[in-house]
């Protein structure tokens, strides 16, 4: 057992559901996005989450008071007893919890997922397996016995090749791959969407856990039961923990395997994604290949198998060029890591903005299609800019564009997948998509589900929401340096006009100051000083 770090404790208090079901905590806990903002705000005060538990906590809270709901933070930080009780119980169950700040936290996740990597990871078993890579095997729950046998053999082959199998622990393909590997004495990582505590106690897993050959982990509370959004949300972790991925079976346009694979191919691109080629053909796999997935060479011997996975990992000793170079996606905000310098890496900022805008657009369009013009009006954004965002989403398969009239709507299969980040940002207990009581109309106040802790001026409208997102990002961008409009536009990959439109209100609010000759903007720091001193 590793000792729990103070940072992990602080994160648990701020974001972790501790009561079964988490109902009473919805609205209290910080959403991942809110947490990220809090970390950033703390960074600007030269502090970290753990300082909220220390002797200077009250000064820090005072300094945060204008941006964060004091009472809510107080209530979160009063959960010490609850957190201790939960931790003690997890330890008895042989379950440990780590946060992004811990050295055991898999570097792969941070590297591949950036700010989307889960802030907490619960696990039981050998944590060394978290950084070992291996082959991710995913597939449907309902499959015939031939495919199960195929997958079982695949697991055994991986074991023989000394390659770790990473999978999701679900019925069907997941379990077949894990059992195949475990039975052959191989190493296995199970990334569970639910019920970690119960799975840990299953006798089938006991020997492998005790022999350090199995690691069971989950980004969700060990007692959390099955929820579709959790299953969706953990898919990216399966890929991110591996060197390459193989989809054994998938539906087309629906189901967790499909959306997880597509998200991987189109959005995260952590690892090369292969599809099964042996056996009966599958429309789902064909569709994935259309999206860019590779064909699994179906190796039958250890050597070939090893070569495929090794080269995917960029580990080829013979110096051959890897089949696929994983694209590093170093996110903008990795908890403690400090904000990414905009002058060294441009894309993470653009990605983050794109990600946030995507969330917003998908939420906006979830019920009815709209034209680009209408969307731009609604968001009070530059039409040209909106066009470019929409185009991106259409390319990613999340939106579909119809002609005559030209309308954008959420792709039917993607609704589930696309809505998962929304569910994540909103609450822990919500089913996919907005609840029926929630009006689809863009200008309706959504605070009933998305309790704002941020006293932003006008987050009640879609335009306000977009502005909140943009302003938040901009303020972080300006945290360390002064920038010209052009530099900002390049960093965020948006038009200069759009940038100006966002910057002006910030100047008006006194958060930024504008200098002329040369024309640049910088953070107005006077507030922080009064806050801390």
């Amino acid at each position, binding site marked *: 057992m590793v000792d729990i770090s103070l940072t992990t404790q602080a994160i648990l208090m701020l974001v972790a559901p501790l009561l079964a079901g988490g109902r009473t905590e919805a609205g209290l806990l910080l959403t991942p996005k809110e947490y990220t903002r809090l970390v950033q705000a703390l960074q600007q005060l030269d502090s970290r989450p753990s300082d909220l538990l220390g002797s200077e906590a009250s000064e820090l809270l005072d300094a945060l008071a204008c941006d964060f709901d004091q009472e809510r933070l107080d209530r979160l930080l*009063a959960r010490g007893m609850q957190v201790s009780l939960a931790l003690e119980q997890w330890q008895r169950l042989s379950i440990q919890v780590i946060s992004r700040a811990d050295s055991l936290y898999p570097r792969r996740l941070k590297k591949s997922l950036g700010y989307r990597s889960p802030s907490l990871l619960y696990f039981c078993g050998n944590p060394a397996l978290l950084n070992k890579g291996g082959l991710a095997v995913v597939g449907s729950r309902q499959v015939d016995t031939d495919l199960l046998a195929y997958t079982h053999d695949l697991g055994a082959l991986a074991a023989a090749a000394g390659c770790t199998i990473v999978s999701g622990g679900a019925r069907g393909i997941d379990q077949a791959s894990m059992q195949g590997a475990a039975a052959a004495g191989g190493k296995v990582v199970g990334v569970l969407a639910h019920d970690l505590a119960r799975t840990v106690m299953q006798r089938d897993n006991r020997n492998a856990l005790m022999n350090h050959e199995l690691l069971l982990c989950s980004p969700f509370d060990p007692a959390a039961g099955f929820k579709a959004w959790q299953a969706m949300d953990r898919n990216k972790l399966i890929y991110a923990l591996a060197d390459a991925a193989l989809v054994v079976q998938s539906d087309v346009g629906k189901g967790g395997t499909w959306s997880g694979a597509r998200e991987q191919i189109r959005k995260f691109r952590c690892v090369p994604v292969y599809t099964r080629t042996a056996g009966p053909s599958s429309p789902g796999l064909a569709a994935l290949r259309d999206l860019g997935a590779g064909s699994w060479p179906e190796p039958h011997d250890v050597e070939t198998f090893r070569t495929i996975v090794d080269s995917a990992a960029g580990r080829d000793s013979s110096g051959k060029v890897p089949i696929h170079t994983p694209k590093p996606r170093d996110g903008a905000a990795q908890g403690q890591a400090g904000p990414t310098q905009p002058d060294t890496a441009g894309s993470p900022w653009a990605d983050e903005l794109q990600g946030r805008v995507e969330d917003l657009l998908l939420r906006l369009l979830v019920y009815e299609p709209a034209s680009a013009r209408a969307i731009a009006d609604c968001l009070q954004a530059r039409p040209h800019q909106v066009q470019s965002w929409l185009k991106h989403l259409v390319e990613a398969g999340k939106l579909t564009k119809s002609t005559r009239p030209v309308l954008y709507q959420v792709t039917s299969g993607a609704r589930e997948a696309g809505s998962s980040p929304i569910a994540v940002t909103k609450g822990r207990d919500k089913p996919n998509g907005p609840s029926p009581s929630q009006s689809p109309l863009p200008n309706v106040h959504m605070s009933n589900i998305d309790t704002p802790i941020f006293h932003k001026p006008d987050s009640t409208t879609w335009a306000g929401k977009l502005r909140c997102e943009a302003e938040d990002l901009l303020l972080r961008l300006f945290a360390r340096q002064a920038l010209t409009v052009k530099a900002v536009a390049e960093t965020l990959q948006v038009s200069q006009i759009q940038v100006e439109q966002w910057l002006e209100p910030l100047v008006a609010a006194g958060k930024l100051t504008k200098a002329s000759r040369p024309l640049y903007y910088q953070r107005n720091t006077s507030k922080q000083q009064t806050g801390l001193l």
Partner: protein
Amino acid sequence: MQFNSNLALALLRRGTQNASATFHEDQDKAIQHVVEGNGPLLLVQKTGWGKSNVYFIAAKLLREQGSGPTLLVSPLLALMRNQLEAAHRMDVRAETINSSNRQEWDEVVHRMMCDDVDILLISPERLANEDFRERVLLPIAGRIVLLVVDEAHCISDWGHDFRPDYRRIERLVRLFPPNLRLLATTATANSRVMEDLQNTLGCGLRVLHGDLSRPSLTLQTIAMPKPAQRMAWLAERLPEMPGSGIVYTLTIRDAHRLAAWLNSQHLNVSAYTGDMDNSERQCLEEALLSNQVKALVATVALGMGYDKPDLGFVIHYQTPGSVVSYYQQVGRAGRDGNPAYGVLLSGWEETDITDFFINSAFPSQDEVRQVIEALEREPKGLSMSELAREVNMNNKRLQQTTKLLALESPAPILKQGSKWQLTPTPLSESFWQRIERLTELRRAEQQQMQEYVSLSSGHMEFLIAALDGDPRTATLPGLPSVRTEANPRLAQEAEQFLRKGGVDIQPRKQWPPSMGHPLFKGTIREASRANPGKALCRWGDGGWGPLVDHGKYQAGQFSDELVQACAQLVWEWAPSPCPEWAACIPSRRHPELVPDFARRLAVSLGLPFGLALLKTQDHPPQKTMANSAHQCRNVIDTMQVVPENVRVGPVLLVDDIVDSRWTLTMAAWLLRQAGSGEVLPMTLADAGG
């Protein structure tokens, strides 16, 4: 948070109902420390110092400033009535959740959620209870600002009274974030315990340590090996003792028997033990408080938290196992500063008793192995009763074993729903190391108490030094020492008393569950079961015990004195129906011992004797079988009836020692099947119960 000293003082005065009360040294300092949140605090102060004032006032001051409630964990909730009244006067909304007020839990939880409770009191057992943690504690834990751990020495492995449930408290406080307040209190902590606590509660731990001397106490030790001598001494000396007091015994049985003896000597005393119900105990406590009894003859059940400032004496009938528990018990006398006696009597049986406590404190390697192997065989886990069937252990031991294992962290076994399951973590070697360390410690403590017994002076110095205090703070005794001889005539009378009456043997009425035998299941029909019987004495007791022991293990024959005593007992007992013949339990190991005795007893009672039962094969001694199913299985098929020796009338069935009663049950069943009349068991000693 701010410490408001005026408000604190006002609260103290309201609580004590004394308008001019002031804080003792360190009391206000402790309150201030807690309220201001200056890190964990350990209070080591004598009982009666006023620790409860510290936490009630601190809890109240925190609440006044808008903080959440306080949680107090104490093993002594039942004994906190006085303190709760004081809290009430201070306007502190205190609630308890314990096993005796289950019907109020929902209400208390509701009030906690409504922020309507200032301090919640729970027992360590509650805190360790899975269901309670999940259902009650976790939801209300979200606002708790202060945890108070009473009897905090239990957190330490080196503490004198190891309470398994405190292991969870220990781990819990280790996980406390720095913004949670922690107050630990204890009356006794030697330097090793303190070191352990420092380790657990964090290096920033602040300690407020009071002095240990009890100047009002006159301490004395008297060694008197035989129980009858001590009984005689007590009967004579008790009336000379100042005021009223407590006589401590090590066992419940001794408490009852000693109280009965003293009553027979016209002394106004009552027994007080843990097997009495709450209201009865409360009544007795009240009687002592108001001096309506000269003394309570009590086990440690009358313990921590009982506060009678003018207690005139504490006498120990036997030597307790450690200096710490002795100091705590004797320290209850003379709290008001008036002179009081603390007399320790020492007898031959005490080492056996404390040895038994030491040896049975923890499961054996074999018991743990049995449990783990049984669970290994069953991947789906076993319920407690299924587990009991698989292991050769009695239920109490089994429960203790599973509980201790489950309190490890990570635990090697855990209960999931109703089933015990193996976890993915094997039992750590540290489990055995801790047991070994604790057992050694207990032996050393036992030894230290024997040193204390042999002192002729300097008793208080010895105790203070043993507790790592400053022995120079001890003062000279204020009372003359008590006479150390027992009156021989009274001792003789006590001996008679001990030998009188015998012990009842209740017949078994049910076959053990899950025997897996078609004949022996469910209720034993009345026509097949034994009648209530009698044993001459309890095994290992004073009175007849030594004679039985000598006959069985040394002489190889029971003496005529025992035959006479048993005959006498049968006359006094006058069972109905009256036995018309005698039989005995056969044995292949000692084929003559019991038949010889039974024959002589039959002669003395004028009854015919018949060898009606035979042992057909050897089986392991019944005492090595630890639970009913194993014991019963062990005797089935090993006994046979000899029909021609069976008579029709009621039979006196004789054995030397009865333990599990399965042999008697089986023999009675066989005799009744063979046509005998009712079966009246009669044994020399009862080793069961």
